[in-house]
């Protein structure tokens, strides 16, 4: 009985740690883009997936959405929805990166502002974040959340 409770507690702590990590990553990713949104839009365009007319609106909206997701995950509010959106956005990023790399496009990732070049390592990193976000979306906020009973 005590062992089961211990495992349960450990699981809840792990979930809380996961959402803090993912939330922190999303907040950091959003923050690094805000200084030069025009440059981020060029990085989005370089993926050659979106039509040119839609690149600017997409680039303008994304950091805001990342920021809201990150904040909610860190605070443990609406955790499952925020984590589901985090997972969905990571799936989008993984798809875009894979398509770009498969097409031989030499581009900057655009993940955290700056000029980090997209590689298959970037894809693996985003896949890992996708799995972690899915775990939180399924498992919930864990301990230390703003709303313990929230699902």
């Amino acid at each position, binding site marked *: 009985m005590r062992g089961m409770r211990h495992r349960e507690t450990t699981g809840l702590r792990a979930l809380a740690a996961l959402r803090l990590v993912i939330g922190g990553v999303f907040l950091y990713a959003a923050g690094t883009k*805000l200084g030069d949104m025009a440059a981020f839009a060029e990085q989005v365009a370089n993926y050659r997936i979106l039509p040119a007319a839609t690149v600017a609106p997409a680039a303008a909206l994304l950091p805001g*959405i990342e920021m809201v997701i990150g904040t909610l995950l860190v605070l443990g509010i609406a955790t499952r929805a925020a984590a589901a959106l985090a997972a969905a956005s990571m799936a989008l990023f993984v798809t875009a990166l894979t398509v770009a790399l498969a097409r031989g496009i030499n581009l900057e990732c655009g993940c955290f502002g700056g000029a980090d070049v997209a590689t298959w390592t970037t894809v693996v990193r985003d896949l890992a974040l996708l799995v972690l976000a899915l775990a939180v979306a399924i498992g919930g906020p864990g301990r230390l959340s703003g709303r313990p009973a929230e699902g």
Partner: protein
Amino acid sequence: MNHRSLSSQLLAILASGSALGLGLNALSPHPVALSVPVYPAAEPGSGTCSADAGAQQARRTPTMPLREALTACAGCTAAFVDARGTAAFAQGHIAGAIHLPRGDVDELRQAIERLRTFATIVVYDDEAGCQLAQPVVDLLVGAGFTDVRLLEGTWSDWQAAQGPAQAGACEACDTGRQRD
């Protein structure tokens, strides 16, 4: 949590995030203009007619990678404009390309009008710094075309990539006094 509650939370996050994104963009020291199309930049090291090799003005000209241009050529989704001289064009050019050497708009009017049926126009030459293609890009932009790109690569690169090609004069162009 029921599905309706989850859906409403998802929508609320997307809506508030979008609004926040627009606000943050407006406050950014380098905001992106929402109504202006953003085209891919040149890829470092791809092709010889690239932004790095070209004039300062070429840095602001959207480009199309050779690989993407090969697809566009096969699918007839873009018009190709050859900015080289008449003799070079007659010796060989991208299949279906319009010959548009540097000149004034009135002189090249018929060739320019043929391009208006295409959403995207790709201009190329055989120069490392796009010296012939860039003025033609400027001419077309000045004539009101909105999606004009430089090919990332030259005619030689196109041949090396075994892109569709043909020889002969540009019968459809009627560019008046053509020149080398």
